[in-house]
Each structure stands twice: as structure tokens, then as C-alpha cells.
């Protein structure tokens, strides 16, 4: 279990992490999500003891990072953003060196190295110089050193960056299999990756934790109950009459479509209008072709959270981890927010494209 309390990192007057608090439970995959510069890598560097914190405390499996750094390092495997590779060595030599540094028992070293090379599919490249390996293979060597000896906590900073779609799928399934016995923390700015792999998501923005929960919790917490309905009729009056008979509608928009009418229904408050709409359609004899909630998907949650410039600081003592108020979102018309939104939208598009690629 990892407990991070009030973590602050400042470089001079620049605050990179601003009172970050979270808890990571055993045997789960946690994903750090956030735009570039949100503080993901800094957090990971602090957790692994590579850089110091300005304030706060980090406890990993009951060991305080500052008081027992050796015990913490023994229980962690880390793949930094740029894999720390000695390019004048072969993967075999490098991993044997890593095994010795990790103080694996001498008799087990060779087997441990073979095992991680097989898991990361490096065996065919074991005797080539790392200098001559492609980016994807280098990333795998980095991953192999992180999981070598199977430490209890595995921390991976953008583990699939630079890999081709097939490799991404393989590495993701490897990460999933690791989580059966280990705690995995990974960071990514790729939404689909986090959504697919992680049990729990921590969204960082400007060094603050803006959301924390399972993908489902995050989605449902920001879902609005606006309904999109498609009705097979050409009679606008009938549709209007139908809507007038349903209670709890704030207002609605009608648009003729190929199948008949497309109606967007905005409820009053949080009312779930699916059943009343269904019953009213049935009573009026209007065929209901489709009905769905408008907003869904982590993408909206992410966009809403990271495009807001004036985020309220999340109370670390808050009971519910997925307690995100829809009002804290950033669908404002403020210019800076719009600008940021545009940037993130581009990123999300790229991510979506990447996802498509990986699914192909």
C-alpha cells in the first residue's frame, strides 16, 4: 500500500506539485492521467526516491521514504519516462547488471533475467547492443529492468510510448497480468490506455489531484441526464404533445431527421427521464427508435476537468474518492479555458487515433 500525504514539490517559486494526497491499494493498477506538465513524472520520481520532496510524506508498504529509503527501493521497480539504459551493453548484460544491483540471490539471477526477457519478448535481441535496438525494444528493456525480481510495487512512466500497436497490446496485457500479484502505477496522457488498463484513475492537473476514482465512477459522476431520443413520426405536433405530457422536462429541442424526429430532452435537476419517456411513447403509439444519455465517456470527464483554469482544490480528507461535482467542470466560455480545451481536444484526437490504431 502506498500512502502519499500533502506532497509538495517546488522549484524556486514554481510549484510543480501542490498538496497532493492519495492512497494506492495493493493488487490494483492505478493510472496517473493528466496533460503534459501536470506533475505525473515528478510524482513518480518522488515516489521512487529519485528526487526529493519539498513537503509531505510518502509511505510505501509501511516504510517511510525518507527514513527507510533502502527498504522502499527494494520494494519498487521503476521505468522512468526515458528508459535508463547503458547503450554499450547488451540486454542480457544490462539485465544481469540490474539483477546484481537489485541484490537478487546469485543462484536466481540468470533465471530471473531469462524470465523477464521472455515476458517482454526480448530473448531474440539478448545479445545485440542496446545502442542498436529500436525505440520499442529499448522501451521493453527498460520495462524488463523495472519488473526484474518482481518487486511489490511497479511504477511505469508512460510504458507504451514509442511502441507499435501490436506491442502496445502485448505490453498492456503484460501489465494486466502483473497486477494479479503486484501493485502497478502507470502514467499516461493517453486516455484510452488508462481506461483500458487501470482499475483506478487519478487525474492530475497543474500538480493537483482533480479526480480520483474507478473509470466507471468518474464517468457516472459527471454524466448529465440529458436524453437523445429518436422517434419515427413526421408529425411535429404529436411529438410536442407527447413531451408536454411528461413531467420533469426542463426544455427540449426538436430536429427532423431521416427516421422521423430527433429530440433532445433536458431534465429538471438530476431526474432520470428514460422510463417516463418510454411509457409516454408507448401510450401515444409512437415508435421509439433510440434513446441514450448524451454525455458519457472518460474523455468528457478528462476534458471537463483539465480545461478548467480555476480548479477548486480537492479536500484530501473527502470521504468519497470519486466525489466530483459537475459544477467544478470547465465548460465555461472563458477564453483561456477555451484555448486549453482546444489544445487538449487535439491531444484527445491523437489519443483516439492511437486507440484506433491499437485496435486495428
Amino acid at each position, binding site marked *: 500500500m502506498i500512502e502519499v500525504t500533502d506532497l509538495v514539490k517546488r522549484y524556486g517559486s514554481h510549484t510543480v506539485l501542490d498538496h497532493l494526497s492519495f492512497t494506492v491499494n495493493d493488487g490494483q493498477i492505478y493510472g496517473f492521467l493528466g496533460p503534459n506538465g501536470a506533475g505525473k513524472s515528478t510524482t513518480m520520481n518522488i515516489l521512487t526516491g529519485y528526487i526529493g520532496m519539498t513537503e509531505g510524506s510518502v509511505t510505501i508498504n509501511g516504510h517511510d521514504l525518507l527514513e527507510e529509503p533502502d527498504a522502499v527501493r527494494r520494494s519498487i521497480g521503476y521505468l522512468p519516462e*526515458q528508459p*535508463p539504459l547503458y547503450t554499450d551493453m547488451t540486454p542480457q548484460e544490462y539485465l544481469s547488471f540490474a539483477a546484481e544491483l537489485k*541484490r537478487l540471490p546469485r543462484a536466481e539471477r540468470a533465471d530471473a533475467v531469462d524470465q523477464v526477457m521472455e515476458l517482454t519478448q526480448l530473448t531474440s535481441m539478448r545479445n545485440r547492443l542496446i545502442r542498436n535496438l529500436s525505440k520499442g525494444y529499448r522501451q521493453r528493456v527498460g520495462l524488463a529492468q523495472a519488473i526484474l525480481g518482481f518487486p511489490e510495487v511497479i511504477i511505469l512512466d508512460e510504458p507504451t510510448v514509442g511502441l507499435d500497436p501490436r506491442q502496445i497490446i502485448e505490453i498492456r496485457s503484460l501489465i494486466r497480468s502483473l497486477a494479479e500479484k503486484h501493485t502497478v502505477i502507470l502514467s499516461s496522457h493517453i486516455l484510452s490506455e488508462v481506461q483500458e488498463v487501470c482499475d483506478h484513475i487519478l487525474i492530475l492537473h497543474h500538480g493537483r489531484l482533480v479526480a480520483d476514482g474507478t473509470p466507471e465512477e468518474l464517468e457516472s459522476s459527471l454524466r448529465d441526464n440529458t436524453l437523445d431520443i429518436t422517434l419515427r413520426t413526421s408529425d411535429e405536433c404529436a411529438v410536442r404533445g407527447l413531451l408536454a405530457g411528461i413531467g420533469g422536462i426542463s426544455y427540449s429541442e426538436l430536429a427532423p431527421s431521416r427516421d422521423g424526429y430527433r429530440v433532445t430532452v433536458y431534465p429538471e435537476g438530476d431526474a432520470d427521464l428514460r422510463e417516463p419517456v418510454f411509457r409516454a411513447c408507448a401510450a401515444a403509439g409512437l415508435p421509439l427508435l433510440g434513446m441514450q444519455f448524451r454525455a458519457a465517456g472518460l474523455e468528457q470527464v478528462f476534458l471537463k476537468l483539465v480545461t478548467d483554469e480555476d480548479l477548486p482544490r480537492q479536500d484530501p480528507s473527502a470521504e468519497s474518492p470519486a466525489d466530483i461535482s459537475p459544477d467544478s467542470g470547465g465548460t465555461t466560455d472563458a477564453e483561456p479555458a477555451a484555448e486549453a480545451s482546444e489544445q487538449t481536444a487535439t491531444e484527445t484526437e491523437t489519443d483516439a487515433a492511437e486507440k484506433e490504431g491499437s485496435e486495428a
Partner: protein
Amino acid sequence: MTAIYKRELRSYFNSMLGYVFAAAVTLVLGLFFTIYNLRGGHPYFAFSLSGTIMIFAFAVPLLTMKSMAEERRSRTDQMLLTYPVSVAGVILGKFFAMLTVFVIPMLISCLCPLVIAKGGGGSYLIDYSTIFLFLFLGAMFISVGMYVSSLTESQLIAAVAGMVVLLLMLLWDTLVSFIPPTVAASAVGFLILFALAALIFARSAGHPAVGIAIFGAGAIFTILCGAMASRWFATALTSFLGMFSVYGPVSNFVSNYVFDVKGLLYYCVMTAVFLFLTVQSVQRCQYR
């Protein structure tokens, strides 16, 4: 530490740097040996060896330049510093690997006194004790070069700065002789030294009062000494700074034929100090 030592040593001989260093130093030693001993007829190899001392000031920084700087540039320090190894272990592993590379030409040079003896004359005692001294001198040079390398990410800066520092160390006696042996010069010099000490201690203690106390005590000491023992005080600064002479022990071994234990100890202490500073420098980067 052993893992780091083995990796570093292998890296020196994978990248040719180890071979080039050993070959270049052996070549220069051989040249000096040929010129002074074989052609010039000087009976002691120690004399030729002491003549090559400047070459070490240029060659050792080439050996040490990448030791820490390259780790930072290629981010491999992220591996070393997040693994269950101590920073001191990493530094010592690297230090001993470089020392091993340095020892190779020294071992080859052990043949020279045998060649001289074959021709008659020479002194094993003087020659081998000087070679022994050079191992300690080399260790000190390596620790200085390594410290400089830990301050930068650029190998080039590490090499050039290392050469400058080592040259200044070798020229120390000459630099000290520039200080006039007067009470005023000594007083100013001591005040500057106390001010530096005050600054360093105040910064590390994080309290300006510590610095003020040190400087105040130093100033009182300087004024009292200047007033009471003016003749002794006039040369006090030059004698004090002269104690840090790097070339002194070499000239004791080579010219005075004295086995200078104090000099050997001085090299050991300086090596330890610079290794300690390297550890501090790495940890400071980590916890900046």
C-alpha cells in the same frame, strides 16, 4: 559496489577509452624513460616519472569526464539512484574502476627500473616508492576529476574544468610564492580564508549566526597574532598554504629521497574529501 565496479571497468574497455588512456600514458612514460634514463643516463626512473606529472593533469580528466556527467545526461542515474544501492557505493565503484585503468600503465612502468638495473646502477627503493606514490597521486586526481564531472552534464566541460583544477593544484607552490611575506598580506589572506569558511559553514548550517561567529573569532585571532607575533605572522599564511602543496611530496620522494608518509596521507585525505564532495554533489542534485 562490485556490480558498478565491474560495469564501469567493462565500459572503459568497450568504449576504447580505457585502452587509449593506458596506451597514451604508457607511450609518454616510455618517451620520458628513453630520453632521460636510456639516452640521458639519469640513474633513477623516479626522475622521469615526476617529469610526466603534467601529462596526468591532462590525461586523468579525460578518464573521469564521463563518470558522473554522462550518467546525468543519459538519465541512467535514475536507475542507480532508485535501486537499493547507496550513493557512496556507486561513487566508490566508479572510483575504483577508474583507479584500475590508471594502475595499468603504472604496472607497465614497473619494468623500467628493471631495465635500468640491467644496465647497472639505479635504485629499486627510490623508483618503486615513487611509482607507489603516483598511485596515490592518481587516486587524488581521479577523485578531483570525478567531483568536477558530478557538477555538470557535459563531458567536455567536465574535462576542461578538471584539467584547469588539476593544473592549479600542481602550480600551487608557485601561486603561493606570489603572496608577499608581510603582516598585511597575511592578515588580508587569513581574513579571506575565515570569510570563506564562515560562508560555507553558515550555508550548510542554514544559520547566519554560525558564519558571523566563525568570522568574528577568525578576525580576533588574526588581529591578536598580527599585533603580538608580527615576524612569525608575516610568513604564517604562506607556510599554512604551503602545507597543501600537491607537488611537495613528489619532490620529497624524487629529489630528497625521503619516503614522505605525511605526503601520502595528505593525498589519501584529499581523495577522501573529494569522494565525499562527489557524494554530496549527487545527493544535492537529488534533493535540490
